[in-house]
């Protein structure tokens, strides 16, 4: 499906099929529309627009397991992909270990950068169960935060790693 050729409909839009947080979804998107705009249009408001130039990381999502900034990615490129947004990790009723760790560590201030940062952290922790501080800092490098100075966020990722190791035992 991924390499299938898309054609514009009579309104000049693509109809793309993808999975968002495990659910199949078809989206109507303009050729110029970013994946961020499309996701927000379809109700995934957790993914944020902080700069629209791919520099702040607030719009980070996972595309087929890899972390991407969705604001500079045309939506049609997501055709056939599996997208994970912050809403796909956990909910207030049943939060993901990383979300719980961010709360516990006091890593959330205004919270605007947090969805993107948690998605980036998930990308890291999916690959590395025991990241060192340097690896965490390096991995979160693309997620700007002006509130926290990153101090408690780095702690949060360490705590999340610990929680995930515990739960996988």
């Amino acid at each position, binding site marked *: 499906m991924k390499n299938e050729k898309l054609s514009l409909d009579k309104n000049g839009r693509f109809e793309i099929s993808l999975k968002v947080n495990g659910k199949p979804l078809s989206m109507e998107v303009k050729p110029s529309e970013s994946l961020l705009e499309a996701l927000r249009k379809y109700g995934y408001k957790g993914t944020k627009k*902080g700069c629209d*130039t791919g520099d702040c990381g607030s719009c980070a999502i996972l595309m087929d397991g890899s972390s991407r900034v969705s604001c500079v990615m045309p939506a049609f490129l997501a055709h056939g992909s599996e997208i994970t947004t912050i809403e796909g990790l956990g909910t207030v009723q049943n939060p993901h270990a990383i979300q719980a760790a*961010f709360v516990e560590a006091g890593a959330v201030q*205004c919270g*605007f950068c947090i969805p993107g940062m948690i998605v980036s952290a998930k990308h890291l922790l999916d690959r590395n169960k025991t990241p060192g501080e340097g690896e965490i*800092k390096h991995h*979160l490098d693309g997620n*700007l935060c*002006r509130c926290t*100075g990153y101090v408690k966020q780095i702690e949060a990722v360490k705590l999340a790693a610990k929680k995930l190791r515990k739960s996988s035992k």
Partner: protein
Amino acid sequence: MPEAKTKEFKVVNKRVEKIDSLGLACGEPMFTGDVDIKGVLYAKLLWSPHAHARIKNIDVSQALKIKGVRAALTYKDVPRVPHTTAGQGYPEPSPYDTYILDNKVRFVGDRVAAVAAETIEAAEEAVKAVKVDYEILPAVLDQLEAMKPGAPVIHDEKDSKNIPDAKRNIAAKFDFEVKNGEWFADADHVVEKTYRIPYFQHCAIEPHTTICYFDHQNRLIIRTSTQVPFHVRRIVAQALNLSVKDIRVIKPRIGGGFGSKQEVLEDVVAALALKTKSPVRLEYSRKEVFISSRTRHPAFMKLKTGVKKDGTITDMSMEIILNTGAYGSHALTVMMCSGSHTIPMYRVKNNIKFSGKSVYTNLPVAGAYRGYGATQAFFGLEAQMDLMAEKIGMDPVLFRKKNYIKLGEGSPVFKAMGEGREGVEQVITSIGLAEGMERGLKEIGWYEKKKRYAAENKNSHVKKGLGMACLMQGSGIPEVDMGSATIKMNEDGSFNLLIGATDLGTGSDTILAQIAAEVLEVPNTDVIVYSSDTDLTPFDVGAYASSTTFISGGAVKKTAEKVREMIIEVAAKILDEKKENLYLKDKQVFSKDGKRVTFQEVANTSLYYYNQHQIIASASHFARTSPPPFSAHFADIEVDTRTGEVKVVDYVSCVDCGTAINPTLAEGQNDGAVVNGLSHTLAEGIEFSPNGTPLNANFRRYKIFTSSDIEKVRTILIPTYEPNGPFGAKSVSEIGINGPLPALSNAIYDACGVRLCEAPFTPYRILMALKKKQE
């Protein structure tokens, strides 16, 4: 005593979870822009491409022909009411020099026209289709140049108000002198130095966003990312000739502000909504945030200080000239705080002089920014402290210890300089600086490293160094700031706390709930917080001036105490006891002889059974003083003398914020402020072309610190007990940002002997300074 008090706390001073943090971490739609409103129109503004120009002719007819465009406003279509965008107490001490739209533009990025259209694309097309015929005027970009005779006059309009000297582009001025003798007569050494800082932007990650719509009664609802909802209501009403009753302002979760959202920029969205009778949404792009929202005031500062050989500071003269950009938002108050929040830090034996000006230029508009003048002035003052200590051959630590303001002492500056007017007399009622300095010196390893680095530096191109700074700030604006609260009791013994106070990510909702819970003897989760809605919550000036914990917290404490009395009154009837024999504990009311009744029963009795009434109370709070928090900062750095790069290996800040209502959140406030300050110091600054066009208005070219730019950043809370604050609390949010500029300037000097007096300390500047030193 303080410690004993602290030990009794049940909810206050505890690390409870921030109440909105889980929702935020799960991506719940909590921000201004996270709602979809049916039929919403998208607003776009046309921004001036010229630094200074008069609009000779403006034609929107082509824009209006574009499909989906519903309105295109110019200065001809909106009321012309001089006002300020500064969200401050009324009447604002900032000049009334701003119009919704004007026939003159004063900087690249000034508003020219505003459109609303059914799609973003149509709105973008429409702003391009507005035809403007400009008469380009000469521009002035430097605040010193702007005061010279013959400089272009930026505010030559007749109707602006409260500009002290429009002809010389002076937006605000203030002078103050204490003279006890001849200047510098007692001094063994006089140190004179000039310091400069450039344009810094707040870089809140959420761009400014506003949605205006109408309710079923045709009232204008403004859902907006603001720190000052009540000032938004008043200033929008003023600018559009509306009545306050016609407007409701709702502040949802806010994605950071740091002062940039203390500006009322909602007027133009409201104007578009009124014109189209439709909901309208405006979201700034990052570039627009950089250029057209607000910035920190760039500063030019001259310090001249006298010192005696024994370490006595004899004279202190501070001259500061701020660049306020095209409009005078916070022009007077930031300038005055640059003196009032710094000079009292140290005793001065003889003479004190402050001379301040804020000057218009054709550059972006400065405004409130965390630190609010103190950031600018502490850069100079704390560098000056090291320079003086060096002159007399004294350890800079001991020099500061000798001179900093002590418990029970005052300063003539407190009375002379308020925010835009006379201040209040006050003495220091709590200070933990001695402990803070001791702890910081130990944590950073000051004396041990001083010796070691001196030896190590001899044979290495990487020079290591240590620097420090002492800091203060205020806690709210005395006799100006006011906050209020309402608390009501529910059937299950829980409470609703309604507050005007504005949580912009700081955690104020959480700490205010903790304060209420402490008084009412319930867990903080039994206090349901609703804040910042001008229809539903009582008044509060908003989130600025480090006021929320101290002022709004004071209001919450008073309110909770009133509710406590009401609970006791009902319980007294139930238990048939005298009120004075009753006390609250663990969601129950106890009598001294062991009788008890649950909150649930008290609430149900009052609501349903007997002498029915809602247990509810409101209270307001303002303060006569503004107890300063204090802080000592220590930096351990390396300068690579080949590349000019500075690495901050360890940064320790010890903060006396009184009782930390929530230590985790207090640490978070300080961590964030410190890293913002480090980022200012080493990386930031808006650059302009010679014609005033910003050159780096994006995150790729305006660098802010990321996680990989920090090594070790440590906040250490130094508990004290402020008798005037709620449960001993003072402010914590701003102070930390003032430290990195001077601490790093001092550390770089310690490492490699060059004194940087202009921020940011880029590798280029360091290399140039090293080169100059060699010559």
